[in-house]
Every structure is written in structure tokens, then in C-alpha cells.
């Protein structure tokens, strides 16, 4: 009787869940599968009813393309710097915001941090582009007003990556701060008090007591940031278009350019490589963070 009840309950559950599961498969997995399939076809026949399959030739082509290899290196380097910078700043900013010293004004800072996250990214990046303009940009106007030299912004090879890193940080960091703040709110205060009684210094307390308890937030933020920055696209489209030269020609943008040139096979091969890299790195990071003893 009990078994029958359980089966019945499960059946109802599966019946209700089935449409959503089906939708997830159709809407989520099907496009990915199609994209991977396209990466094995000749670009000129990719959209035809009988595409010509060319095996791994698109993959061989992109791995022999120096622009793609440079693009892959630029993407990885940018991601590494962006993840570290964003999470470090978000962590210490969240620590500052959760401090009891700031009990009254904290909401204002939180609001200011989070507003960019809910701002449409294109609109935000257009404003950044204007601010970086060497003709009428606010940033150079401010620098000049205090007697400092011009910032090259997005027009200089030396500063273009920094410029979009700053713009992206403005957009993303608020999200990471919110995740950290949620974790900070759950910290066990008795551990802090015990550390204080043991005369542990700030850094020792931070490293041995606070940081281990922030493991959930760090894991979520790192994985999210990794995915976000490996896929960096909108900021490039809006502000730099891959330039100057190929300084910000990250994989997503390069694949998009290939797609725009009707090179569907190579474009989807690039997208598939990026997808694989994201999956491996994100899974590896998750596995490592679960396995590691943080104390």
C-alpha cells in the first residue's frame, strides 16, 4: 500500500516535471547539439538540407590559424586577470559592507554596487565608450583637470584591455559582492570571538577563520566569473570591436566575426572549443573547491 502510494506520488511528480524536462532538452541541449554538429560540416553547405561533413577539418583549420591561437591566449589571459581582480575586489568590498562600522550607510553602498548589474549591459558599455573617447571623453577631461596625462583608453594597444577590464568590473562586481554578502551574513560569529580571544591578528583570522567559511560563495563566484569572462563578448562588440588591431579579439568575438563572414563551420568549431574549455575548467574548479580542505 505504502509502495503504491510512493509510486503514485512519483508518477504524478514525473508527469508534472516531464514537460519542463522536455523543454529543457529541446531549448537547452538541442541548439548546443546542432552547433556541435555544424562544426563538422563544410561552411558553404552548413545551412543546406544535405550538409557535407568534413570530419575534423574545421578544428584542424582553427588550430592552424594564428589569429585563433592568439585569440585563445588573449581570452585565457584576460579571464585569469578578470576573475582574480573581480573576486578580490568583491571580497574585500563585501567585507567592508558587512562590517559593523558601516551599519547605517551600508544600503547606499550596496545599492550603488548592484545598480550596474541590473543596467542593460549595452547601454552601460556605450557610456563607457563615450567616457573613454579621446575626443570628448570624461575620463581624459578629469585627468587633464588634475594635471595628469591622457589615458589611452580603447584607442591604445597598451591600455585597451585595461579599459574593458574596468568597464566589465563595473558591470559584474556588484553581483559577486551580493553573493559574498549573503555568505558573510551566515558566518559563525562565535568562531570570530574565539579567534579574538586567542589574539589572532586580522590576516590570520581572515585566512584561518573567515575564508574557509566563505567557501560556498567563493566557489559560486569563481565558476560564474570564469564562465562570464571566458565568454566576454558584449563589451568587445560595443567598445572595441576586437581592436585596436587584435588586442581584444577574444574567442567569442572572433567566432562571431567568422559567423558574420558565413564561415559557419569554423565559427561553430571555435564555439565548441570554447564550450569544452568552459566545461572542463568550471568542472575542475568545482571539483577542486569541494575536495580541498579550506581550513
Amino acid at each position: 500500500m505504502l509502495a503504491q502510494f510512493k509510486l503514485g506520488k512519483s508518477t504524478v511528480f514525473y508527469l508534472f516535471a516531464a514537460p519542463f524536462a522536455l523543454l529543457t532538452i529541446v531549448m537547452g541541449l538541442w541548439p548546443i547539439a546542432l552547433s556541435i554538429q555544424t562544426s563538422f560540416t563544410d561552411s558553404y553547405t552548413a545551412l543546406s538540407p544535405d550538409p557535407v561533413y568534413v570530419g575534423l577539418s574545421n578544428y584542424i583549420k582553427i588550430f592552424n590559424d594564428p589569429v585563433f591561437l592568439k585569440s585563445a591566449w588573449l581570452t585565457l589571459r584576460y579571464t585569469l586577470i578578470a576573475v582574480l581582480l573581480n573576486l578580490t575586489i568583491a571580497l574585500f568590498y563585501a567585507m567592508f559592507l558587512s562590517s559593523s562600522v558601516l551599519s547605517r550607510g551600508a544600503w547606499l553602498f550596496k545599492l550603488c554596487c548592484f545598480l550596474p548589474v541590473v543596467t542593460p549591459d549595452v547601454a552601460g558599455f556605450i557610456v563607457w565608450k563615450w567616457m573613454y573617447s579621446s575626443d570628448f571623453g570624461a575620463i581624459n577631461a578629469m585627468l587633464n583637470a588634475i594635471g595628469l596625462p591622457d589615458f589611452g583608453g580603447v584607442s591604445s594597444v597598451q591600455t585597451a584591455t585595461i579599459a574593458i577590464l574596468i568597464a566589465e568590473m563595473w558591470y559584474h562586481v556588484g553581483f559577486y559582492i551580493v553573493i559574498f554578502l549573503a555568505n558573510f551574513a551566515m558566518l559563525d560569529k562565535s568562531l570570530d570571538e574565539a579567534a579574538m580571544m586567542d589574539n589572532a591578528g586580522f590576516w590570520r583570522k581572515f585566512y584561518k577563520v573567515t575564508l574557509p567559511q566563505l567557501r560556498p560563495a567563493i566557489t559560486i563566484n569563481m565558476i560564474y566569473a570564469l564562465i562570464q569572462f571566458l565568454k566576454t563578448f558584449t563589451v568587445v562588440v560595443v567598445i572595441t570591436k576586437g581592436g585596436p588591431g587584435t588586442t581584444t579579439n577574444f574567442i567569442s568575438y572572433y567566432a562571431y566575426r567568422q559567423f558574420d563572414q558565413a564561415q559557419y563551420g569554423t565559427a561553430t568549431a571555435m564555439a565548441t572549443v570554447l564550450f569544452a574549455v568552459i566545461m572542463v575548467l568550471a568542472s575542475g574548479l568545482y571539483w577542486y573547491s569541494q575536495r580541498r580542505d579550506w581550513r
Partner: protein
Amino acid sequence: MKLNALMGATALALCTTTASAQELVVWHDLGDNGIAWFDKMSEVFQKTNPGVTVTSVSFPTDQWYGKSIAAINTNTAPDLIYNNYERVIRVVNQTGKIKDLTETFGAMDDVGFLTESDIGVATYNDEMIILPVQRVQMGFGIRDSWLDAVGEEFPETWEDTIRVAKKFVEEDPDGNGRADTYGLALQAANPRDLIHMLDLYTFGAGLRHTLIDPDGEITIDQPDHKAVLIEFLKTFTEYGLVSPDTITHSFPEMYQVIEGNRAGMFRVGDWNVKKWDTEESLNGDFRIGEWPAHINGTENAVVIGGMRGVAVPENAPNLDLAVEFAKFMLSKEAQAASLQNVGAAVRGDFEIEGLSERRLYFAQPKHTLNAYDFPESVHSFYPELEAEFHRELVEILVDPQDDWDAYVEELADRMREKRDALMQ
């Protein structure tokens, strides 16, 4: 019984309506101006083809490609597609289902206004893939008031252009008291944008090929070509005549520079003039002419940068009617509507009233015209070769050379190697 009769009559009436009413669907990328043009043509076409309506749908260019290719390949094609010749070539290459209009064109009487060059541009792999409908002319524009302010005339040569451009940078031609003006507005963000600018320099100077000639010879290190290419690269890197942000500028940013009154010299397409004549934009404060002459003895020109035309998919739902409409697009009425709404046409043998001096410049051309060479119609490997050329140029703009001459020689050698590899 009465009810049955009524239902029968209704069904018959519905069938009759369905049978006589036909809708032709056209896909293009001309935006609102294009939609207005097709609406006007639809009105006129209906007079001789009662019950036929023409519905046009405008897509952003990149979506137009994908949608056209996918629809034609899956037998859900529109009746007609409309775009630049080189874009239709891409559709031909990816579908193989664009109707050869050679016979159709051969049977048309009133086509004397089309030049051999126009017809050549419409032909790919010995098939006429489009009926040419609009020449895309691009001239050299200069702010009239700025020329007056610096006491100069419309520049004829490249040396004149450099001199005037420097004055535009240094002499505050807009009189606002700020050093915020540039000599030229260009763009370089996307490789295709950059090569487009080089095409204007090259064909405007009267040369015939930007990169490769019909025999497959790389041309960029031939003396005249090299001279133009080096000056082009120096415009971006050494002369200080363009905004430093130009290397990240694409079309929208280039237009912001022009329409924001920050550059004195710029490309003027025939489709730009209508807007730039209005108060909201340049208010007609610009003059149009041929591109500057770089080479002694070579005639400089306004550039025909493309040919827009209409193509008919072989699997169009209303194939015969679609061909009829394509032919109609070369009629005086359709061409007049084209000039009025889009600013371009291939014929001018009709009354043109109310057009500004600048619009007449393109509508009834009296200047030298030099058309792009469209190497993709001769060399199937050209798109890949051009992509490589683009990449080289984009890289070098941020790495200025001391010896441009040696750089171009080496670049030409690399292009030859690439060409040879692609030809294998």
C-alpha cells in the same frame, strides 16, 4: 437548400479571391527607406497586375544572409531577394538556387541605360544572378563652411587634401574656440570597414584593383598602388588628421564624427545625401566631388562601390510573377521611386524635380565613375585572401612602420604565398 446555396456561393467567392490575390514577398536590408520604396512600387505594379501586392521585409544585413540562405535551402524562400551583388554571390555559393536571369534580361527592350560594366557586375559564373537596380556611388564630401573658414578650394590632389585637412585640424574651422575638429572621418574597427576605406582611396584615384587583378597578380606593390596604400596607412598612423579613436570606429561611430561636426572631409554615399541635406543633420553644408588624385595622369573618380540588384530564388513561391516584378524594377516609375526613397538608381532618363544640387550630383552623374572590380566574381578564393589582407592591415595600424615601402613589399610577398596556398 438556401443555406447550402449561400455556403456554396460564399466558398466560390472566397476561392475566386484567393485565386486572384497574390502576394510577392521581398527580403532586403534597406530599412524604412527601402520599405517605403517597395510600397510605392507595389502601388504602381498593381495597376498592371491587379490583385498583386508586394510586401517587403527589411533585415539587418547579417540576418539577411542567414535567413535568405536558410530559407532558400529549406524551400521556404521569399519570392525575391534584394541586396548588393557581392552579398547575393554568397547566397548563390551557399544555395546554388538563384535563377539565371540571362534570358529574362536578353528579352528586355528598355535596358540601354545599363553599361557593360553594370551588366558585368551582375554576372557570376556566366550567369546573371541579379538585375542591376541601383548603383552605389560614393563621392568625396567636404564641409562648405569649413572650406570658406580656412580659405581653401575643393582639393583636387592628395597633396591638396593633406594641406586642407591640416588646416581643419589646426585652424578651428567651426569657430567654437576648441581644438575638436579633424581633417577626415574614416573607420577601421572591422576589417571589412577598413578595406572599404582603402577601396575608396584606390578606385577614387583611378586604379582598377585593390589587391589582386583578374589574372591573379597581387597588385599592392605595383608603384601606383603602393603609393596609394602607403598614404592610406599614413592617414591612420602618422598624419594626425583623423580622430585617435578611428581604429575602433565602425560605421555608426564614423557617422557620429561626420554628423557631430567633428570632421571636415568624409565619404558621401548617394544614400547619405537625403538625410544630410536636412536641418537635423549637416543642413546641406557640404560639397561633393571626386576622390583626390594621387597619381599624375590618372583620372580620379567617384567610386561605384557596388551594385544593388534583385535576385529570384529558383524555388520562389510565385516564380513567374517574381521575374515580372524584377523586370518592373527597371521601369521609369520604379527607378524614380528608387531615387526618391533610397537615393540611387541605374537610370536617370526621367523628370527629376525638387532634388538638391547634391542629390542631382549622383542622380545625373557628369563626373568620372570608377567601379569596384569585384574580384570574388573571378577568383573563388578571394574572400579568404581578402580576410588575410584585412588582418594584416588591422594589425599594422597599431604598429606603425619606419619603412612603409619595405613593409608593403613584404606584405605583397605574403599575399602571394597565401594566394598560391588557396589556389592549390
